[in-house]
């Protein structure tokens, strides 16, 4: 197994590609007969034995024509990849459980079309693309984001079996590609503003928030916020109501690690934080993020949201630990 790895290393290389656009040359293209090609060879061999045995001249001609066809198909499969120009794009961040999308520009500088190019990360869905003569295509390669942090999708395998399926020609492309994977947002209601400010900052001290309305209670709401009077007035046995506050200086919402349920594991607490960020962003609130070892001062906007989510994504991952 180890020898195999060494062989693979030697054959295919594992270094990342640095020069863009990448032009596929013959050093990068590998080609072997496909399973169908093997079957074809066996069929030809059996046919040859038959033709010799029955002394069929036309049979010989047929077999030789098909042999030539196989050789020509090999050349064509190779040329279907040869000279392709590839330029990777920047990948957008995504959430755990969603697909990360890596854009790749594929150009065909040649005056013949190229067909049935299949690109994929290993063990990921395959994207098939046809390129017209002197045309290009922008494709996005999907890669399932399974873990929070920085996702390195690895190398792209570019395969083609065109035109006859008798050969599998392939090439590996390994851009320095990565994308951030945020924790999967868990939709829970935002922590109350007062709670956030009171708990840590004592800002406003209960007097400055404007009462903004009532909403059904969620398990994460502190009991202090239950609108007992409003609950008492209601005749139907509905859920408890909590007071909501808005406006004033208190719209500096702090999304604090310590406000997440302490009995959950840290990944889940990060998910809750991510959910809060999404919700706060939707409500265009001014929010800050506080984690045990770092904090981001309150602000609004998509850049802020991205910064917050990135902090969550990289929270206590190898990357941040190395940086520390």
């Amino acid at each position, binding site marked *: 197994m180890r020898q195999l790895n060494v062989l693979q290393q030697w054959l295919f290389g594992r270094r990342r590609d640095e020069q863009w656009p990448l032009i596929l040359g013959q050093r990068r293209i590998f080609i*072997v007969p496909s*399973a*169908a090609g093997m*079957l*074809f060879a066996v*069929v*030809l061999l*059996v*046919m040859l*034995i*038959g*033709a*010799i*045995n*029955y*002394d*069929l*001249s*036309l*049979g*010989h*001609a*047929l*077999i*030789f*024509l*098909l*042999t*030539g*066809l196989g*050789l*020509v*198909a090999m*050349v*064509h499969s190779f*040329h279907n990849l*040869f*000279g392709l120009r590839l330029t990777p794009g920047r990948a957008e961040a995504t959430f755990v459980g969603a697909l990360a999308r890596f854009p790749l520009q594929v150009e065909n*500088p*040649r*005056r*013949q079309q190229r*067909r*049935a190019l299949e690109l994929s990360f*290993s*063990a990921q869905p395959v994207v*098939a693309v*046809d390129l017209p003569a*002197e045309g290009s295509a922008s494709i996005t390669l999907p890669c399932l984001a399974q873990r929070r942090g920085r996702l390195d999708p690895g190398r792209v395998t570019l395969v083609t*079996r*065109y*035109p*006859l*399926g*008798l050969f*599998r020609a392939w090439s590996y492309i390994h851009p320095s590609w990565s994308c951030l994977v945020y924790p999967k947002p868990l939709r829970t209601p935002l922590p109350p503003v007062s709670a956030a400010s009171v708990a840590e900052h004592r800002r406003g001290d209960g007097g400055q928030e404007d009462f903004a309305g009532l909403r059904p209670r969620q398990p994460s709401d502190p009991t202090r916020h239950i609108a007992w009077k409003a609950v008492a007035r209601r005749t139907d046995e509905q859920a408890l109501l909590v007071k909501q506050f808005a406006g004033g200086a208190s719209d500096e919402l702090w999304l604090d690690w310590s406000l997440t349920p302490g009995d959950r594991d840290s990944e889940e607490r990060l998910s809750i934080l991510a959910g809060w960020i999404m919700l706060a962003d939707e409500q265009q609130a001014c929010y800050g993020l506080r984690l045990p070892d770092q904090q981001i001062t309150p602000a609004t906007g998509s850049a802020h949201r991205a910064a917050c989510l990135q902090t969550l994504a990289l929270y206590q991952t190898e990357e941040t630990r190395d940086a520390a």
Partner: protein
Amino acid sequence: MRPSPPQPIDQAAVPWLLAVALATASPHGEHLPPWLSVLFAAALLWRLWLWWQRRPLPPRWLLALLVLAALSGIAWQYRSLLGRDSGVAMLVIFMALKPLEMKTRRDAMVVIMLGFFLLLTHYFYSQSIPTGLWLLASCTLLTAALIRLHGGSQPPAAIIRQAGLLLLQALPFMLILYLLFPRVSGPLWGLPQDAHAGRSGLSNEMAPGSISNLILSGAIAFRSHFAGGIPEKADLYWRGPVLDAYDGLTWRASIPAAGRPRMVPVVEARGTPYSYSSIIEAHGQRWLLALDVATSLPAGAVQAPTLEVLAREPLRARSRFAFTSSVDYHANRSETAAALQQALALPPMINPRARALAEQWKSRPPARIADAVLSLFRNEDFHYTLRPPLLGADAVDEFLFGTRRGFCEHYASAFVFLLRAAGVPARVVAGYQGGEVNPVDGYLIVRQSDAHAWAEVWLAGEGWVRYDPTAAVAPSRIEQGIVAALPQDEPLPAIVGLDADWLRQLRYRWEAANNAWNQWVLGYNPQRQRDILSRFGMANPDWQGMSAALAVLSGVALLLVTVWTLPRRRRADPAQRAWQRYCKALARRGVTRAAWEGPIAFARRVAVERPQLAALTSEAARCYAALRYGRGDSEQLLVLQECVHRLPARWRTSP
């Protein structure tokens, strides 16, 4: 490399695969039992309907049942599952039923491989030019189906064009391999019983009607190519079996060819010998149909004491043989007593009137007796016809004194009977007489319709002398051929009857093409391969030399195909080339145009960085912009092309 998961077949590719099944299997309909053809057609139509209606495929158990039923049907039909015909029938059935379980691309590949295999089986039955063309057409279709399967949806014309291109590129490989692939002469193992079914030709006996049946066939028996001139038509007697035993009904060879004593005939040839080679169609017998009488034989052949040339093995495939013959000869001036005895034997009691007639001639010298019989045929009311009345037990009597209508076998038979009855040794010779020269390639074509029987008489001091009693009745049969000899209302032999001039020309061309095909394609055996290669300078090539040449030539061809398909850059137009040259020249002087920089912007930058080049560059840029983006004229192109030369020399400007 990971194994790819089974890929479902693109539904739009299904018609392509059904077309493949149809194209590769349907020519077998000619010799398959009708029920199999019906089953095949029904299965394909069923699949087509399922595809059309987007219905699911039938369950596996149903297909398994169908396969079992069809296989037992084949086993019952052919009494075996192992022969050539039953094997083909099984392949056809698989081809019919496989599309019904075709779900994945892998299934489709099986259909296509089956198609390739089925193509090969056609050549068991025919290797004619049309079959060869069918090979090319079917191969194109199979290739197109492969392209459709792996290249996705495209207009059918584009797919067919691509397939044609691939095959065109494969053709050189086919030619190289065909010429150089070391040929092995088969068979590698025993062939099945039915491998050589259905051959027609002369048989080793002459029963009533056997020759007239042959005469009605237009099939070619053999072709001969003469190195020098071709003998007179009247001298073109091609010797087949010599029939010297008569039982009153049928003439046979007294001893089967295999059991004859190894006695070499003594032939004294006179005149210039003719050397020629014959390409003889497979007839399943040993005789080689040499021109009477052969003086030198092809390797491996022997001459029987009765002068016919025999191959060592029965002729199972069309083969070429080289002979020398002399038409003026004395053969076996001294004959063995046994042979003479055999040439006098007659069954007792039959044909009393013929015997009585012969009795009157007994006192004459043998040659005069033969002449008497010929003049009898010539002067009495005898007729040449292919539809003679049926004869009874005393066939010769009935013919001589009753019906008087017949063709060569009647005349030869009666002639020999009369001579033997008169005590002159005589025998019947079967073979072919005449032939037709194809003006296109100069080959003499001898057909089954030229089948003939004549007589030989042994005259002391002269040996065996040929007498053709038919010539006495219908001299035109010998001079001009069968058509001229037959009465108007007789059915004419196939093909031969076509007399229209343009049709005859067409036929000559077609037959010449067929002859070339036979020699170059079908007759390309180890011997011929050696001949061709030695003509190309490979004296005495062995398989190692051939393999080496094969590898080298294939490599060269592969390189050519690679270059052919190499990416070709579009050639820049002259304006662009001139501008690029100018920019390159500037780059050598230290100002490099960025890829994104347009001509005007670049000129502006040059004006800042190299003021001394400003005017020239701006002129070049203006010309280029006008040519490229505006309505530039040829004058501007000239100016632009000149700009490079007007650049100051490098040393003056380079920093």
